[in-house]
């Protein structure tokens, strides 16, 4: 039996693929937990999981710690994700620049009218500073500056969707898979996020999603990872709203 643990962002992909995989391979038992990217990697290092999912790259200290326990994390990129700023559908604003986003998140821009919207206060909503999504946001948008302390820090993508959907003041950001009709995705630097634009790097904020194993995967684990990377698996990735690897390859081809 296989244990998967880690990033909440990767959860939907992991769950949908493992359901499909188990349907095809009766008798295989796979369990899946969230908790977070750090939790997953921690579990990999304790050897309490077979696969750690992560929405960020493993950190240097984590590699060191793993090494000291005889664990050798191996990364498998299984999909791409675009991080999309989102607002309430009632908000007039259609797009922002990364600079504006940074200003808003630092608490320097505090009213929507400063960026072309109505005269409304901006309520800044962020993911928890320890989440992988936050880290990507930090990397792409904030650079070295800090998110204002007054920003709401919600513990999950789901909480952000719920909050933004009901709140006309709010701005937040989500992994692409979580953007649905109840919230409005913004253009960034004039580019609308889509699989295409993310792949072509036109859309500036996209990241890899990983599965880590201890050493090269063997047996059922290897088969499962292969399944995700297969066209069938990537079909599911796409259905869950993320950017599939295959499309990336196609995109590359198209770009050439």
């Amino acid at each position, binding site marked *: 039996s296989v244990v998967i643990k880690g990033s909440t962002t990767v959860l939907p992909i992991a769950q949908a693929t493992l359901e499909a995989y188990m349907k095809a391979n009766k008798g295989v038992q796979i369990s899946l937990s969230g908790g*977070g990217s750090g939790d997953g990697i921690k579990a990999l290092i304790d050897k309490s999981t077979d696969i750690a999912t992560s929405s960020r790259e493993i950190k240097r200290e984590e590699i060191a710690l793993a090494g000291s326990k005889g664990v050798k994390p191996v990364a498998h990129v299984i999909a791409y994700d675009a991080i999309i700023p989102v607002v309430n559908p009632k908000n007039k604003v259609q797009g922002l620049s990364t600079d504006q986003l940074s200003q808003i998140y630092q608490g320097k821009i505090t009213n929507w009218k400063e960026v072309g919207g109505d005269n409304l206060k901006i309520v800044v909503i962020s993911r928890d500073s320890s989440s992988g999504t936050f880290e990507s946001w930090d990397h792409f948008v904030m650079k070295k500056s800090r998110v204002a*302390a007054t920003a709401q820090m*919600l*513990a999950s993508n789901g909480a952000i969707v719920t909050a933004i959907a009901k709140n006309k003041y709010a701005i937040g950001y989500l992994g692409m898979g979580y953007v649905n009709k109840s919230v409005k995705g913004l253009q960034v630097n004039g580019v609308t996020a889509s699989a295409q634009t993310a792949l072509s790097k036109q859309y500036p904020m996209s990241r890899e999603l990983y599965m880590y194993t201890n050493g090269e995967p063997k047996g059922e684990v290897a088969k499962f990872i292969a399944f995700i990377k297969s066209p069938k698996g990537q079909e599911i990735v796409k259905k869950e709203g993320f950017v599939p690897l295959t499309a990336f390859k196609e995109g590359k081809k198209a770009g050439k």
Partner: protein
Amino acid sequence: MNRKIKENIIKYIFFAFALVSIIVLGLIVLSLFREGMPIFKLVSLSDFLLGKDWYPTSDPASFGIFSLIVGSVIVTFLAIFIAVPLGVLSAIYIAEIAPASIKEIFKSVIELLAGIPSVVLGFFGMVIIAPWMQETFDLPTGLNIINASVILAIMAIPTISSISEDALYAVPNEFKEASYALGATRFETIAKVIVPSALSGISTAVILGISRAIGETMVVLMVAGGAAAIPGSIFDSVRPMPASIAAEMGEAPFGGAHYHSLFAIGIVLFFLTLAFNLIADYLSHKFHQSGSATL
């Protein structure tokens, strides 16, 4: 003699059980310290407690939990502000005013309500109260102090009410009779004799309610909003300590400074509950009235 040995063996078996319990409970405290203390090699105690910046993942990171402490204190204080009057008054209602025939039922209902899982209350606050509050009052956010406080109050009320009721019920009948026999009305007897006599139990109830509210995790994780800043009004979001632990522990790299700092927050919480319990112990001894006249 044989029986005496048997007697002793049994005694030591019980002792062993008690010891295991106590040791385990001690271990909990110990593990908190073991995992939490290393943070103080990086940050001084006063910077940790009084620092206003909580950026555990930034580079360089800041580990100041003052705003988290403030968040916990404000949310708890407000919850108590709501829960204590309601809890104590409803206890008075059940103990002294409700018709005898339905007393038992009311008491059971209150006890039942103490069992509503916190995740359910958190869910209710997040999915129902927050959007409602935000739209009705046109607030920037429904995930705020007042929402969290109301939910925590709902959680603390059964505890406060049920234990206060026990205390009121335990007030010796002689005190009541003495008061009535002097021509006091029911209200006067309740206000001047029964409640003062039950004060020890009521204060214990309140402190237990506070302890429960201050350590409650799921509710504040789901409805307090999570902003690690010192709030300007009760409609702002805060990030109480337990919420921080629960939200960040999953992501914090094992053995890192962030990880240790979360355990250190656990230590702070532990000391807070310890303080409340010591106060409760002190109060219940101070207000303790020997049940009836001692001869």
